[in-house]
């Protein structure tokens, strides 16, 4: 490492990378805009400038509150959010406007969290039970009559007036804070697996799993289960817990496959998306090829990725509608945004995006390694692992590596709650990183 690398402070380095993200946003928007209008113009430059200004604002707050924090996390999150909103804009301008608004709210809450917790975020540890109970309450909210609504067979949404959000996204972060506090306190006792200490853990976790199972939210169920196991492993260092957890998961998954039709259907779609003979189609009640019925969405998404090829169609030039203007892939801008991006950016671009996700995870784990106290380590490791697993679940589902379960791609997918929750996650990582770097 030369003197040149050290000459830039963390925050200055962050600003340089954010400028690169700004240029990337500009190119992306320009490309979409030009492809849409079929003429060369700079009409879209305003959007890129707007996002760059927003990120600079976030950067200034970070400069004031967490001067020693990791310089790459914010630019990477910014890049993912910008690529996401560019693709959402390409798929439909009105959704992009809403998404932009949510990013503004996300950055505002990110700033608020940094300002409130800049002195010592470890006060959160004292509130661990509040977070644990809130996590369950939030998961329950959509099931309250009059508040919750069902979308695609899963009851995940809460409506208050015209305002709607998905509490599960926040519940995830609350659960991680609870686990970090609880496991820090009990990790030595837990390593001996005494029932008294394992009890409260199983209660909170069991409650989460029950709510998720009953609301058909399989993706979140898998995510919570994974976060729980990973944090238990980080806290105790006992591989046997992970093995037992995996065995339980396989047994539970097997039972669910046999007993719950929803799960059975997902696995069938995953293993056999195409049929040559007509099979029973639950949506219409009549016979149909499976690719025209249950696995329609997945198959169209695979075609979309294949259509991208190596270099991609180019931003704004992919095919997402039929000749008569119908949308080819339902929910393309939330659950399936990866297949849209893979078509327009190609293998090269999609791989780059996955690399950014991986780097974000690597930096997050590094923050966990650097942290001094158990709570900070667990918090950073939990937040990072949650982010990694969520990315794997949705990208793996879209690519048919695992059964598809609807969940958002962090920072990229269309969805207000998801964007806001992920910016809070970022704030958490920066706070831990700042503390770790200032004390050493």
């Amino acid at each position, binding site marked *: 490492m030369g003197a040149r690398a050290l000459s830039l402070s963390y925050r200055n380095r962050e600003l340089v*990378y954010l400028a690169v993200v700004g240029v*990337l946003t500009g190119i992306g928007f320009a490309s979409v805009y030009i492809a849409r209008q*079929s*003429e*060369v113009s700079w009409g879209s430059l305003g959007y890129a400038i707007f996002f760059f200004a927003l990120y600079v604002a976030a950067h200034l707050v970070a400069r004031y509150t967490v001067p020693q924090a990791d310089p790459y996390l914010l630019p990477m999150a910014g890049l993912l959010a910008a690529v996401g909103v560019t693709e959402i804009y390409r798929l439909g301008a009105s959704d992009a406007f809403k998404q932009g608004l949510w990013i503004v709210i996300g950055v505002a809450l990110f700033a608020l969290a940094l300002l409130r917790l800049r002195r010592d975020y470890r006060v959160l540890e004292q509130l661990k039970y509040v977070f644990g109970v809130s996590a369950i309450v939030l998961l329950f909210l959509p099931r309250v009559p009059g508040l919750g609504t069902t979308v695609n067979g899963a009851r995940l949404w809460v409506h208050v007036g015209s305002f709607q959000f998905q509490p599960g996204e926040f519940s995830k972060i609350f659960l991680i804070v609870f686990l970090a506090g609880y496991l820090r*306190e009990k*990790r030595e006792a837990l390593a001996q697996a005494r029932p008294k200490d394992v009890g409260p853990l199983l209660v909170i976790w069991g409650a989460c799993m029950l709510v998720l199972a009953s609301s058909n939210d399989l993706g979140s169920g898998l995510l919570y289960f994974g976060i729980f196991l990973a944090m238990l492993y980080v806290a105790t260092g006992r591989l046997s817990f992970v093995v037992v957890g995996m065995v339980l998961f396989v047994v539970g998954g097997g039972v669910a496959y046999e007993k719950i039709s929803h799960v059975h259907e997902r696995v069938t779609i995953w293993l056999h998306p195409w049929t040559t003979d007509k099979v029973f189609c639950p949506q219409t009640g009549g016979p149909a090829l499976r690719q025209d019925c249950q696995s329609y969405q997945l198959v169209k998404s695979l075609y979309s990725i294949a259509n991208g090829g190596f270099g991609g169609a180019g*931003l704004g030039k992919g095919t997402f509608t039929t000749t008569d203007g119908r949308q080819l892939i339902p929910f393309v801008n939330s659950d399936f945004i990866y297949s849209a991006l893979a078509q327009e950016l190609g293998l090269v671009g999609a791989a*780059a995006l996955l690399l950014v996700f991986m780097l974000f995870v690597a930096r997050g784990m590094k923050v966990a390694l650097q942290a001094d106290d158990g709570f900070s380590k667990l918090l950073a490791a939990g937040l990072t692992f949650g982010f990694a697993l969520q990315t794997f679940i949705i990208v793996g589902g879209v690519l048919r590596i695992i059964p598809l379960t609807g969940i958002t791609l962090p920072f990229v997918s269309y969805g207000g709650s998801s964007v806001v929750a992920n910016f809070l996650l970022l704030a958490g990582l920066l706070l831990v990183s700042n503390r770790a770097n200032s004390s050493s």
Partner: protein
Amino acid sequence: MLASAQVETTLLVLKLAFLVLLYLFIWRIVRSAARDLRLPQESMILAPQQAAAAGLLAQPAGRELGRLVVLDSPAVDGGTVYTLDAHALTMGRGSNNDVPLPTDEYASTRHARFEPRRDGIWIEDIGSTNGTFVNGIRLTRERKLAPGDVVRIGETDLRFEP
């Protein structure tokens, strides 16, 4: 649809610029991350014994990092010295502690833990009933010990000396 050659060229240039810049961005971050990997890393939450076994602690296990002198105790003789090395040391009434205090009625079975870190010895209350005190102040979280600090566990007083 009539797409002019100019539009096509512009789009191609933008696409290439986007990908090149994206990979440049990634490459720069990878390079800095690779640099970090070469620096010695601390373990995640490994027990200090494990960390020492893996050679992750800077100090050899045997080196003395400080000592605890018993000032007054119903369980052990005054003046007894416990040395702190790279291993964590637990104290409490139970016999499975590194320093058992069997006849101290006010000490909990597992009471407090002394842990060596990069910057010194830290003390942490591990769920005692009556609390652990440093210079008369009850611990609410782990704390770094300074030379001369007096630690109270149950009815046992110990002085920390570097």
